[in-house]
């Protein structure tokens, strides 16, 4: 089996291998190297949580630190993409999307359509999301539904080191603008990752666990929480199928529907807020296209409609946990008209 590395290392490896393979790949973001203009060491941080460490020295001139000017440098990455580069820009926390969203959703996302098919914008915007580090309301959100909503963007959320490397490789090679979401609580997760380069296709969900009783559709960090719940349920004789969406745009509808038709009972687990989320998106999909097969209404397990609280006790209540998923599964299995 392939050697085991962390999610963070897998991302770094994808960047390294793609930058070696293709000179047009450049990296930019706040502290992506770190130490710019400062008297101490260069590449002091390699990214706030170390994902881009080492690239600065290995690829001189291709890793650019930026001032705290998201709209300018995210826009610059987008402009450079239209000019033929393949930039990988970092929006440090997706919570900061507000200051640069125009460049992403009104410019990058729309160029191809607005310009009659004549623009190609191969930009990747990497960003951190998710709660669990007590980082509080403005550094812990899961805002991928907002981007999923925008035609012209692709939205990717790897849950494992293997997926992280393969999906980031694909994102860099992809000719459309990609929002690449990294859950901050997953960086230390280790798993088997091939040493060689490989690209995973977008729009392919991964059935991480097979089971015939209930379908759990989930993404990102919640994949692991869902697997935990599935283990507990297996001890009670309930076999859950756990589907990791991997990409919300494009979305692998077929895999979700196939499973929903087989089990008739669906639970969606999504760490984002409950309104206009992936949970509601999948629920609508299933209700519309697998209605006949459903044995129970779709259950959604999400965060509450509140900002992310700071205090540990509250944050732990905020994030969906395995018990809540178990309860939701029992609701759908126990449901009668």
């Amino acid at each position, binding site marked *: 089996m392939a050697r085991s590395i962390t999610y963070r290392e897998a991302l770094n490896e994808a960047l390294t291998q793609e930058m070696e393979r293709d000179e047009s790949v*450049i990296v930019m973001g706040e502290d992506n190297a770190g130490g710019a203009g400062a008297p101490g060491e260069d590449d002091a941080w390699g990214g706030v949580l170390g994902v881009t460490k080492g690239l600065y020295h290995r690829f001189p*001139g*291709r890793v*650019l630190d*930026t*001032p705290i*000017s998201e*709209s*300018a*440098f*995210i*826009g*610059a*990455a*987008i*402009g*450079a*993409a*239209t*000019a*033929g*580069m393949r*930039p990988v820009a970092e929006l440090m926390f997706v919570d900061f999307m507000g*200051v640069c969203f*125009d*460049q992403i959703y*009104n*410019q990058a996302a729309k*160029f*191809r*359509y*607005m*310009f*009659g*098919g*004549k*623009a*190609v914008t191969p930009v990747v915007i990497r960003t951190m999301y998710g709660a669990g580090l007590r980082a509080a309301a403005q550094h812990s959100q899961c805002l991928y539904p907002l981007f999923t909503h925008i*035609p*012209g963007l*692709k939205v990717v959320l790897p849950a494992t080191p293997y997926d992280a490397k393969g999906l980031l490789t694909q994102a860099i090679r*992809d*000719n*459309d603008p990609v929002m690449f979401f990294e859950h901050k609580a997953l960086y230390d997760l280790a798993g088997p990752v091939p040493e060689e380069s490989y690209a995973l296709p977008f*729009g392919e969900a991964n059935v991480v666990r097979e089971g015939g009783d209930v379908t759990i559709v989930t993404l990102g960090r919640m994949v692991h929480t869902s697997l935990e719940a599935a283990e507990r349920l297996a001890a009670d004789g309930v076999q859950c199928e756990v589907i990791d969406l991997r990409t919300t745009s*494009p979305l692998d509808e077929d895999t979700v529907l196939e499973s929903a038709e087989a089990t008739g009972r669906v639970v969606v687990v999504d760490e984002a807020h409950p309104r206009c989320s992936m949970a509601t998106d999948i629920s609508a999909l299933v209700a519309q296209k697998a209605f006949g097969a459903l044995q129970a209404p779709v259950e959604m397990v999400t965060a509450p409609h509140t900002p992310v609280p700071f205090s540990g006790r509250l944050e732990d209540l905020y994030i969906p946990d395995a018990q809540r998923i178990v309860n939701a599964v029992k609701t759908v299995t126990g449901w009668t008209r």
Partner: protein
Amino acid sequence: MTDTIERRALTREQLLSAYRMMRSIREFEERVHREFATGEIPGFVHLYAGEEASAVGVCINLDERDAIASTHRGHGHCIAKGVDVGEMMAEIYGRRTGSCHGKGGSMHIADLSKGMLGANGIVGGGPPLICGTALTAKIRGTGGVGVAFFGDGGSNQGTTLESMNLACVWNLPAIFVAENNGYAESTASAWSVAADNIADRAAGFGMPGVIVDGFDFFAVHEAASEAIARAREGGGPTLIEMKFTRYYGHFEGDQQTYRANEVEQARAELDCLKRFAARVTETGELARADLDAVDAEVATMIDKAVNEAKAAPLPGEADLLTDVYVRY
């Protein structure tokens, strides 16, 4: 306003080309103004008439290495950068034969093959993109530059200010052209720009700032060619402020009750085409007959563009769903 004491020597061909380009823009905009009033043109148009010297005086220094980004008032920049006039007109009419196959419209006309990153419906949308193209030129060592055109309104947008700082931090071959036509929609720039001049901000960012009479092609050309040459050699960005006025409203349909009668005066005394013609005929570089010939050609060209646009097919139903992605 600066007086034009000397001007760079331009060849006869360059002078004719400059005149043709400015005349094309003027005729294009005047014609769109007339046609829009018939109700046939969908959506919004924002006309550039009066400002021609800025677009042409800058873009005459550019070549295929260079990119420009524009604003909602983009027709002039498009024509100056070489976008096909017929395709532009068809786009304004929403036809399938338009530059964007009818899917962009006046505010989103673009031709990336000509380095025209598009008119932009978002005020301040262009400057960050130009930082990107300038960065690309710098990394690739092409000697190319990026020019971001924006208005006095756009000069206050955070994106513009951030881009200016970023361009200075990264020492990019970027030219920021603030086209101060006196109004951001209905609000005077004298009110919304707290400093005396937009160009005064340049020093705050660490780059040169130049104020130019935007009605004077030769003054524009002088300032722009210097800034562009410096940028090509790695000398970094410049902020150029054009001072002039727009002949029409913010958008077609704007009653312009916020204005006095400065347009009348400008057309009579300051107009860039009149001044250019007077200058070149006085020095004998071009003859009146040369200019008249250009006027006639341009009139024919615009006429043809309008007739073809009106006759062109609209996009089909299938076009609604195409070109969202390269591959989904």
